[in-house]
């Protein structure tokens, strides 16, 4: 376990933006006094005229980004997760997702945030966004991506720059283990089967994908064959891969660093209940807020919310008996 290679999502995001900026002069980047942290400042150094730091004013950030997009720019607006969907859902809804003309649904704004979920750690519950998937998923025209590692972030930054319309992409604060190969392709609306299995499925997003893989390895040692799917595209979600998993493995455990109400687990449950109903268990914050935890204590914080590989494995075993 300790041999995992770690990657920093924000660094990859910042690097990709600079590369994109070189290729496409229509890319503009906006920040709200967190540009060093989000690693977008490097874009600002390279392209100062296309970089706007609007100060601690997130509603303004989002709406200025919308205006730039209406005039033909591709806007990347970034700050911490707690301040984007949490603080300005109205502006995201009305200034970005709602305005549509002809085939163009919503404006071309990419909301890329960092510090999603409990792993924010020390800053505490006020800064641990556990509701963003639920909020963003409910807004028409908005697509929601929760990448699992820095490789996914790097590739998805390019993908969303090249696809018209609003996206929300959430990154983690801490460095996370790299689980994807450089050659992995990421297609919006498609899940990735990381590990095949026949007894049950673990569908996960974000940093919990790694926990899912660890759980599957544990279960293998107990003779249980477990499929693991990285559902980085929470919306649109890959109905086909989920339905097949239900049909072929008969039970699904979902896993997310988010409230289980309205989040990724809910999205999976909606699909499965309408396609091929099988037992489902949702791992995530159990309708609770987070709290402070220093970096070395984050595993304890996650454990309090049941977001561990051990709990995932236990859930998988329990749910098999319900098949």
């Amino acid at each position: 376990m300790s041999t995992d290679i770690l990657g920093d999502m924000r660094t990859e995001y910042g690097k990709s933006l600079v590369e994109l900026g070189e290729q496409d002069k229509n890319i503009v980047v906006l920040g709200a006094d967190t540009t060093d942290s989000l690693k977008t400042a490097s874009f600002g150094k390279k392209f100062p005229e296309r970089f706007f730091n609007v100060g601690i004013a997130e509603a303004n950030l989002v709406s200025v980004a919308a205006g730039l997009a209406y005039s033909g720019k591709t806007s990347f607006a970034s700050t911490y997760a707690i301040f984007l969907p949490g603080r300005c859902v109205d502006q995201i809804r009305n200034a970005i997702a709602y305005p549509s003309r002809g085939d163009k649904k919503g404006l071309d704004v990419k909301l890329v945030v960092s510090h999603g979920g409990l792993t924010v750690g020390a800053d505490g519950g006020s800064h641990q966004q556990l509701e963003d998937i639920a909020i963003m998923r409910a807004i028409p025209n908005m697509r929601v991506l929760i990448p699992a590692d820095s490789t996914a972030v790097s590739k998805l930054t390019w993908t969303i720059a090249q696809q018209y319309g609003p996206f929300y992409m959430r990154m983690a604060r801490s460095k996370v283990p790299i689980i994807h190969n450089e050659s992995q392709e990421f297609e919006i609306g498609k899940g990735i089967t990381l590990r095949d299995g026949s007894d049950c499925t673990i569908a996960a997003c974000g940093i919990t994908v790694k926990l899912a893989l660890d759980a599957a390895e544990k279960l293998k040692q107990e003779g249980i064959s477990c499929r693991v799917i990285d559902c980085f595209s929470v919306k649109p979600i890959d109905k086909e891969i989920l339905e097949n998993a239900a049909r072929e493995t008969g039970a699904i455990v979902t896993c997310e660093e988010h409230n289980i109400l309205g989040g990724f687990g809910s999205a999976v449950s909606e699909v499965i209940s309408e396609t091929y109903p099988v037992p489902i268990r949702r791992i995530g914050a159990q309708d609770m807020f987070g709290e402070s935890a220093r970096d070395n204590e984050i595993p304890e914080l996650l454990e309090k919310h049941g977001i561990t590989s051990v709990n995932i494995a236990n859930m998988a075993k329990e749910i098999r008996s319900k098949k």
Partner: protein
Amino acid sequence: MGLNYYQIKKNVLKARKLVIKGTTAAGSGHPGGSFSMAEIMGCLFYKHLRYDIKNPEWDGRDKLILSKGHASPGLFSNMAVSGYFDESKMETLRQFGTTLQGHPDLKCPGVEFCGGSLGIGLSYSIGNALAARLDGKDTRIFTVMGDGETDEGQVWEAAMTAAKYKIDNLTVFLDRNFIQQDSYTEKIMPLDEHLESDELSEMWKDASRWKTGDKWRSFGWNVIEVDGHRIEQISNAITRAKSIKGLPTIIIARTIKGKAVEHMEDNPQWHGKAAKPEFVPIIEEELESQFMISPSIIAGDMTHLENEVKRCVDGRADYIHLDVMDGQFVPNTTFDNEKIKELRPLTVIPFDTHLMINEPVKHVKDYIDAGSDIITVHTEVCDESSFGEIYDILKSSQVGVGLAINPDTDLPTWSEKFISSLDQIIVMSVVPGKSGQTFIESSHEKIQKLAQNLKEHKFDGYIEADGGVTLDNVGACFTDGARAFVGGSAIIGQNDVRVVIREFRNKILRSRRKLLIQKANELGGTDLVNKWIDLHVVGKKKDELLQISQELGYQ
């Protein structure tokens, strides 16, 4: 585009009527805030905003962002008048399946912003302005915000951002109508100062108590304050704003919510309510009965005409009547185009130039160059050919066109082909030539007949009564059908021009109220008269209406 004062005014009237048409058909909507910004919209749509109705996404266009999205009828009505869509479409406002949504929406080609949630439009405008700068385009962004809207904290986030980025390709209007949904802004969330009573008028008059401009100045903005119902002031402010480099400009337009329909004016009830269909014909009559006061400066000190112009400005005249006499068409001589050119920089109030000269066709160009907003020539010294020439020159120079007739003259037959596109017809109610004469009584009948005749010929300008108009007869002249009133000795000859102009307005208002009560009676008898009177809940209007109604024997 680039229309003159009169054409803008006519289009503003058309747009106001369409606001009533749309909101009444919908049974809901926001006439109050549509009317307070009506002149702002008029100046943008018909003079300053660059757009192409056939190609709404034309790359070279300016962008109009209606941040106070609830005033969508005020936007859509002007889009209809401009020709984006047929005027009849206004009746689909708020209907299922329409592109004329309750709040402006990109579904409607030509709309640039999905308004509705307040406080977003300024930030969005900044984004558009920055994009234009990045692309090296000379696009101008015009944004209209409500005053209540600026309660939103995001507005001030945006205000700082615009100053930081020195956004000078953006002109913002603050529609300062003093009313938000619940009540007066100064009661709900004061922008100037907290209001304890319902008496707005004291604060309104006292400019030293206005602090809204200071707020914006302290945020690093160039602030221009105007009367938001004066086309000439708005237009001038837009021109000045364009020339300001290095900082954003906000034009604080002091306006009246519900402006132009008395019972809606300054009444918070009309923020978001539609007129009932039974009142629509009366409201239309009221809208068509707007009037203007035009003091004639030759009644003052001819050696200090500059001072007379200043007195007109202080008196808040609608326009300034300039009687040019050449000593040939009339015995007297007054001044010529050179004098007008000297007076022009003193004010933006429209110059109503009345040429009492022979062979006007030879001189009209000089009076255009001097800065006239409208030029009126006498039928007695024109024929079809020479007036046709004058007409063409004036039209192509975007100057209003007027025809004048002497007391013993009627409109000649040749003038009929021009009537529907004339801006003004001056009926001389004295023999022209000097100031201070007595009104010729038969002029009343003449104006009445003329008004009827002009209506049949689709005249949509103003009949101006000129000569001997006083406080005693101005109300009757209005009833006759005159809508502009030249005041010589009765205004300029008085000590306090401001007071006397206000008295003129009150006299005319009384006649207008009478006209509307008669209209109500004609349409629905005493019942409708009383319902109409009951609408007038703000101020003392209702008392006067009841009195008029009693005088007419309707009570």
